[in-house]
Structure formats: structure tokens, C-alpha cells
């Protein structure tokens, strides 16, 4: 297994920055997510998390700091969170931190909906937009 590093950009589409680090088990998704093919982008990330769980069996920290994601991304996020929940139920150690703009009430609601959907404990971490 190798790290996944994707530099985010805002060009024809909005690509989030991704940093999945094998050594620390810290997985970060940051930025905006509006992609040409959402599943093409997220499938390798899901596979990575599954492989990490299966092969490494170590604690995993998932950090989301997305200021915008479209609804097809929202489904991929749900899939990842469900994988994490299954890992936790199987005895794995999982931490999910979700950073959001303190003024973005819609985002806060979205995160609450994910908590309800997955049963995962998600730490809501508000930040002040510069």
C-alpha cells in the first residue's frame, strides 16, 4: 500500500486535496468536491480505506474539511463513513473529525445527517472563515 496524495484544484472542475497517509493512518479530504466523474475519483479512496483496514488493522483518523461538495460526492462520503462504521463495530479504532465554517448552518445539518445515517461519532469542529 502507498500513500494517496492529490493536490486539489479549481479548474474545469473542483478537485479536493487528498492526503491518505499509510504511516500515520490519517486520511484528509480538504477543499471543494465537484468532479467530472465522482465515482472514478472516490472509488480508489474507498479501496484504500478498505485495504488499510484489512491489511494494517491500525487506528484510522478521517478528517474532512470540505467547504462544498455536490450531491453525488455526498453519496461517496456516506459510503466511506459506512466502511469506517463497520470497522469500528469490528473493533477498529476510528476517529472522524469534520471541520466546517461556523456560519455554514447547512453544512452543520449535513454532518448531523451523516451521524444519524451511519451511527458514527463525528466530531464537529467549527472554524472561522478568513
Amino acid at each position, binding site marked *: 500500500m502507498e500513500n494517496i496524495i492529490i493536490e486539489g484544484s479549481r479548474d474545469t472542475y473542483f478537485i479536493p486535496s487528498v492526503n491518505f497517509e499509510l504511516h500515520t493512518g490519517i486520511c484528509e479530504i480538504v477543499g471543494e468536491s*465537484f468532479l467530472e466523474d465522482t465515482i472514478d475519483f472516490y472509488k480508489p479512496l474507498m479501496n484504500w480505506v478498505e485495504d488499510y483496514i484489512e491489511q494494517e488493522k491500525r487506528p484510522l483518523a478521517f478528517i474532512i474539511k470540505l467547504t462544498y461538495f455536490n450531491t453525488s460526492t455526498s453519496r461517496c462520503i456516506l459510503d466511506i463513513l459506512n466502511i469506517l462504521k463497520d470497522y469500528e463495530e469490528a473493533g477498529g479504532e476510528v476517529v472522524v473529525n469534520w471541520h466546517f465554517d461556523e*456560519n455554514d448552518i447547512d453544512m452543520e445539518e449535513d454532518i448531523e445527517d451523516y451521524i444519524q445515517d451511519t451511527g458514527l461519532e463525528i466530531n464537529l469542529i467549527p472554524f472561522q472563515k478568513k
Partner: protein
Amino acid sequence: MQNMINTQELLDLYNLANNKTLLSYTGIFDGQILSVIAENIESNLAQNPNASRKVFKIFLELAQNISFYSTEKQTNSKGKVNGMGILILQEFEDHYSCSTGNMGNTEMLKEVIKKCETINILERDDLREYKRKLRSLPASAKGGGNIGLVQVALTSGNPLAYKIIPITKTDSFYIVNTKINK
């Protein structure tokens, strides 16, 4: 000069996009256009970050629906096929209004209208539950969340206005309008 729009038609079009209009666009809804318009919305509405964020989100959802589901297609310079449609963003004293229109298959649009009706009768908490229910269903082939319109209604906080106008035997023009409070 049969292939040229006459001046009166152009003036009518211009007047139609009256002084309330911040942005109007007709044509292909591909990734490039979507990101340019989204960035334009963001910078134009920057003085009101809350409304700006909402209009940005709503525009992108409605626009992606057009690129996926419009039955009028065009191939862009990169060889990608995308739907065509129209967008009008207007500013009023206490709200913004975002309207989109596109051609669609009438049978499919009837399902869309049913969904709009459901969305409009649901209270916010029930609408959130409805979104969660739709999101847990298998994704459509295009990877769409199947929940774009629900998300639009949740983001806007206002009911959707919508209409379909039959054009051909199989296709209709579909218009959806949403209001974003300032």
C-alpha cells in the same frame, strides 16, 4: 440574412433579461461553463456570504441536472457530451431567484414533478429524512445522488416552483425556480 437573429428579437431577449438579472446563460452546460458561472456567482455575491454559498450550491445542483438529463445534447471541444439549457439568476430586494430550463423526456419529467410535489409538502426535518432515504438507495448510472432537487430545496429553505410545457410528442420543456432569501 435569414440565419441572423433580427435586432428586434435581440432587443426583446435583452429586455426579458431585465435589470433584475445578474446573469443569464443559454447553451451547453459542461464542466467548464459550470465552474466559470459558479465562480462568477461567488464573486458577485461576495458581500453576502451566506446567500452566496447557497446560490452557488443551488446553481451547481440544477446545472448538473441539465448537463445530465437535458435531452438536447451538444459535444464540447473536449469531445464530452453535455446537456443544453438556460439559466437566469436574478436579484430582488430581499431575495435571489435562480431559474433553469431544459428539454427533457416527458415521462421522466412527470417523475421529477412528483418529486417536486413531495419536496414541497414536506417540513424541513421530514425533507432531511427524505434526503437520507434517497441517498441510501443505489446510485444512478451517472453517479448522481438522486437527491439534487431535495438538496436544492433544503439549501434554499423555500418551496420549489416548477412547470413542464409539452413541446414534442415525447419531450417537454422543464422549468424550475428557487428563491434564496438574502
